[in-house]
């Protein structure tokens, strides 16, 4: 602060032009970046194709040995095959006439009798309507057959 030339207000003292000159030069020396580094060229669209360059980013682990890479590839192949094999097993075991332990139950094929629709006569005293049905050609009813006395006949 060398001189103060202007005083517009008793409380405020204005700086002279030379003060301002000096102060602003120092200020902008500090404000302006020291170096201007051109930004890294990415992929050029407008630039001449002969000068186009691409930024390459080194990939981590690029320096590992080829043996390590092939080991890992083999392990991945083995895992893939194992998953495929397991899938095939699951597919096959899902067929209806085979047993599967999936739910802890054994699935089995059940035979369906062809005469499932008609009642089976187990007793002549049953309430089936079939007791009134003739069982022989001469009109003998089933309940009548109980009255027939069976006696051994001599063999001819």
């Amino acid at each position, binding site marked *: 602060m060398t001189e103060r030339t202007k005083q517009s207000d008793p409380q405020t003292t*204005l700086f002279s032009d030379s003060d301002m000159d000096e102060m602003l030069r120092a200020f902008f020396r*500090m*404000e302006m*970046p020291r170096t*201007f580094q*051109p930004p890294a060229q990415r992929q050029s669209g407008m*630039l*001449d194709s002969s000068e186009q360059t691409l930024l390459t980013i080194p990939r981590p682990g690029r320096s590992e040995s080829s043996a390590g890479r092939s080991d890992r590839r083999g392990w991945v192949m083995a895992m893939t095959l194992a998953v495929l094999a397991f899938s095939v097993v699951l597919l096959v075991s899902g067929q209806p006439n085979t047993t599967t332990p999936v739910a802890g139950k054994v699935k089995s094929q059940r035979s369906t009798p062809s005469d499932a629709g008609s009642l089976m006569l187990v007793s002549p005293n049953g309430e089936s309507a079939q007791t009134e049905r003739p069982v022989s050609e001469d009109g003998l009813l089933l309940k009548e057959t109980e009255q027939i006395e069976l006696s051994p006949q001599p063999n001819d």
Partner: protein
Amino acid sequence: MTDSGPKHSGKPIQSSQVEEFYREHSRELWALFYSMCNDPERAYDAVQEAFVRLYDYRGEPVRDLRSWLLRVGQNWLRDVARKKSNSCHLLPGLDDQMGQGQSPEDRLALAERQTQIRQALQELNEDDRRVLVMKYSMDWSAAQIATVMDCSAAAIDMRLSRARRRLAEVLAERGFQND
């Protein structure tokens, strides 16, 4: 300064041309962007952003590279201002002072001083601020500034004088001490 840079009509620009243009015009672009945002780091980012977009540009041929870069950087600054992103202020210049024998107190005082002047500049209108930035950061003559601001050198002299006086008033009102 009046050179608008490599013009091309359909013919691709060589990257060496762009680099040369960067060397010649990056400071001027920084000054113009600084007068818009009053932030040295953001102004630098605007310069970098404009050149990065130039590298990526695939549109119509650019006839006036300087105007193109100025427009791109200006738009970027507007976008940033709209988003109100808070940049990390690194107290520009402090890093440069490291190792020059300054104590932490001195460095802090310097940073405080820079901030005060920056805030005072913020109170000027953009044209006044631009004139001061051109004059003191680029050390341009009134005639050079007149070319950029599209007015006469005499008008620039008047504006420069007025801007300096206005800044002095603002600093005085803020109790700034020029030690």
